[in-house]
């Protein structure tokens, strides 16, 4: 079982409050481009929303793909996070992830992905429609 967020996409309204709280708490700025969850609205066709985030999958190919071992284990949660200081910004993990779960920060300097907010994901708390679950 992956340890990441679960989403009931049928309920999502595309408000991006999840991305706002994520960027606010991770980088001290409101900026969806720096969020670890990304919301896409695809209209008029097919008329749906897509959420992308690290599912904390069991195989975690991102970890193996990293040439400098910058994706490290958070022992408490049993999930992997990107150590921003160690990351060289090569983008190998972005390529390796089959779920579109990690991507580059807009600066291009390092990769970003969901770290589950030390076990208390802020997006889950904020989502007004109950889409996201831990």
């Amino acid at each position, binding site marked *: 079982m992956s340890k990441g967020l679960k989403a009931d996409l049928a309920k999502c*309204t595309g*408000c991006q*409050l999840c991305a706002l*709280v994520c960027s606010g708490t991770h980088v001290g700025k*409101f*900026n969806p*481009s*720096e969020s670890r969850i990304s919301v896409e609205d695809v209209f008029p066709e097919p008329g749906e929303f897509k959420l992308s985030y690290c599912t904390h999958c069991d195989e975690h190919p991102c970890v193996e793909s990293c040439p400098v071992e910058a994706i490290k284990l958070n022992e408490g949660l049993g999930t992997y996070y990107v150590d921003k200081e160690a990351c060289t910004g090569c983008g190998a993990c972005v390529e390796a992830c089959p779920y579109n779960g990690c991507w580059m920060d807009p600066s291009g300097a390092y990769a970003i992905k969901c770290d589950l907010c030390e076990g208390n994901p802020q997006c889950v708390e904020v989502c007004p429609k109950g889409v996201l679950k831990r």
Partner: protein
Amino acid sequence: MMADGYTGKILRVDLTSEKITTDNLNREWAKQFLGGKGLGARYLFEELKPGVDAMSPDNILSIWTGPAAGTMVPLTSRFVVVTKSPLTGTFLDSYAGGFLAPEIKYSGFDGIIIKGKAKKPVYLWITDSKAELRDAKNLWGKDTYKTEELVRKEVGHKYARVASIGPAGEKLGLISSVTADLTRNAGRGGTGAVFGSKNLKAVAAKGTMGVEVDNMDEFVKMAKEMILKDVVENPDHAGMITDGTPIIVDMSQNAALLPTKNWSSGEWEGSAGINSDALKSRVLVRKKACFDCAIACGSWSKVKKGLFKGATTEGPEYETLGMCGSNCGIKNIEAVVKFAEDCDRLGLDTISSGNVTGLAIDLYERGVLTKKDTGGLELKWGNEEAYGKMPAMIANRQHIGAVLADGAKRAAKKIGKGAEKLVVESKGLEYPAYDPRGTIGMALAYATSDRGACHMRAWPVAADAYGSGDPWSPEGKAAICVEDQTRTSVKWSFIFCDFYSVNFANMAKYYTAVTGAKSSEEHMREIGKRIWNLTRAFNVREGFARNDDNLPERMEKDPLSSGKTKGKSVPRVDFERMLEEYYKLWGWDAQGRPTKKALEEAGLKDIVPKLSYLK
């Protein structure tokens, strides 16, 4: 950069010389006028020469965000187009939600001021502190859906957000709108025509710079609590969350003030086919929110079968259901979905378009218009096929559309033969979907609205026809209008969505959270009063006076024909009484002009020398 919600920068674009510059935000004005409506009004008052032709290069077109746009203050991701209206000649502020406002902020700008006229069609592309004018040759003639798609491709950002005009704005129709994110319109007053007159097809933005607030940790805590307690669990929002604005169709039908068949009745026998239940059971696909919204009032709809199969829209919203539904004698929501989609694509305001279409059908039924005028269409009540062709006819100025494109007042004047008597407008802006003969306070709200007949400045109908008050008593209506106009002036400056029922105290709380500066309920009220006095002074400077705060003849002389409101009208004496009371409450003179004292008390001393009537 100060961490106070503002970016501190204004983008200035001169289309004539193709020069683009960045200016510092006037911080003093930001304190006095907040953002959005207020700040836009202050800049326009300062920089627009009085009396200029709204369609000339001398008019100023500006786009503003609020200090909270892009932050977690819920329901504040709106932008406003501020300009002088070519439809009314007044101050104009038209708002749209969607996703553009945060991108303007994240690109580093609080507002955009556009002057002059481009030699050929262009669009403005803004990203991360930079902006450029780009050739719009390939976009000209395209509808807004296609324009968005092409602009995104050209600028290479899948999620660049685009506000554009369609053929209606290009052809300078005075009821044309600016459409953002497919379905969100800065609809009223002819914003699209101002874009068109400047050869400006679109404004697009994508920013990655973010917005900072005073104290992020405190802010997130506050915002999380407010989103839950003041938005999601607020009983005022229950209907907006489950249904959105279509819920108002039944409220208006029950109060018999739902505009029907060109304002002849307040009850519509077909209302069950265009109400919220019809929407939910027949066309709803899913709920959809604007950026930063915990309500998600939007309904993404799609027609499943019949003549209009495949048509999609977000909504239709109440105003569209009323003006393009019942007012056009339409019984099926599918037809309204199609009409709404066409209006969005072509860049037409649905309130005005529903008004002129209802008028045209009425005139056809009376024999004033014939098939010669309609391009062969049998334009009768209930002919959905003919009705469905109207948006294109208006936008492209074909047949009778050539005159309808400039709004009901101008159209009726050109058509003549008694058409003028059928029109319902104030200052040239057609009435929205609350018939004052079923709630007479709305006549005052429409007459005194700064941009012409508008339901978004004051909404006395809530307390009487929809509540427990007496809808036909003039008592207390002036006070409601003054209070509402004060509050909405602040709301439209933040810029909050109409559907967040946010009070002064909470606006003060948000202001402090964003900017770090002290605020209070009283502080917010002062700002609201300042802004409303300013837009009034703007209009007086443009030559508007008491006569223009008008009651359309029909409201007085042509009583409604069925149900609770049968035989009801708006008595002239009641209207005049409300108006006089209203001027007094604002401290204005008998002509409805802000006095020197009123302006000084509102903190507008510096504009006094610019108003010739005060000399």
